[in-house]
């Protein structure tokens, strides 16, 4: 069975795009928080839980929302929507914040809301909660973006009939360095509509490498 990428999004410092078109641009920011907060507000999602997420989850959440603006999830069985994400820094950004809060034994106040984000797959949980997705999911760690890792994992899910569609990608963030590439993968037959027939990309390592290089 062949799969296609029916939507994709990317975020890097200063800009974000969806399906190849620029979605948001802001060069006048210093911190990730200064970049992502106005971007979130502009999306007008009305989802206050966003503010409680750690930076990695915020990045993944926004990248997924950019895709779901173009995908009608109600067309799919939510128990068969998979999510496979990867990065290199795991949840280290939040791990360091947590470490800082427990360094001083005489001022020992670890924050529960920071601690819950000391696992990278919590980001997947945030996306699932938002859209009530209950399919297979996995978070993979690799030193750098590796299209073969994502491709093989997602392909196995399709081959073993574990998912109908799958959100996959790379979401990495550490100490103000961040990048996200997210793709929605589905079988050819499901995805083609009159509206998007010219936009579909073959789901392959080459396509993913190409999209990542364009970031």
């Amino acid at each position, binding site marked *: 069975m062949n799969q296609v990428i029916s939507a994709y999004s990317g975020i890097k410092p200063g800009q974000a795009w969806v399906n190849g078109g620029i979605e948001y641009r802001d060069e006048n920011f210093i911190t990730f928080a200064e970049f992502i907060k106005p971007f979130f507000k502009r999306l007008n999602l009305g989802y*206050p839980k966003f*503010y*409680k997420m750690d930076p990695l989850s915020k990045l993944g959440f926004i990248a997924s929302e950019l895709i779901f603006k173009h995908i009608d999830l109600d067309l799919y069985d939510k128990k068969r929507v998979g999510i496979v994400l990867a990065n290199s820094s795991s949840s280290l950004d939040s791990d360091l914040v947590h470490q800082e809060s427990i360094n001083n034994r005489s001022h020992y*106040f*670890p*924050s*529960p*809301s920071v601690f*819950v984000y000391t696992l990278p797959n919590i980001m997947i949980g945030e996306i699932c909660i938002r859209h009530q997705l209950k399919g297979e999911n996995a978070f993979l760690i690799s030193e750098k973006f590796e299209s073969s890792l994502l491709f093989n994992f997602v392909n196995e899910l399709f081959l073993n009939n574990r998912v109908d569609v799958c959100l996959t990608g790379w979401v990495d963030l550490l100490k103000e360095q961040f990048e996200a590439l997210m793709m929605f993968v589905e079988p050819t037959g499901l995805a083609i509509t009159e509206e998007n027939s010219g936009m579909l990309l073959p789901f392959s390592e080459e396509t993913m490498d190409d999209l990542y290089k364009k970031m």
Partner: protein
Amino acid sequence: MEELIEKLKREVIEQLNLEDISPEDIEADSPLFGEGLGLDSIDALELIVLLEKNYGLKIEDPKDGKKIFHSIRTMAEYITEHKKA
């Protein structure tokens, strides 16, 4: 008491990252959980940390939490009562 209530509102907003909420939006007697501010279980833990960090108060029996954290006013009453002791 009213001064403490206003201080607590600001502290709760900061501690729980309630970005779009201002102190004026929080009624002192409104429930913090459920239909009130819609706080969750992690927020409950953060409130426990807030009491300990800012007021030196430890909640010994978790069952007391429901009563103490019912509203901003019940939190203020608990602080006032236990700070005096």
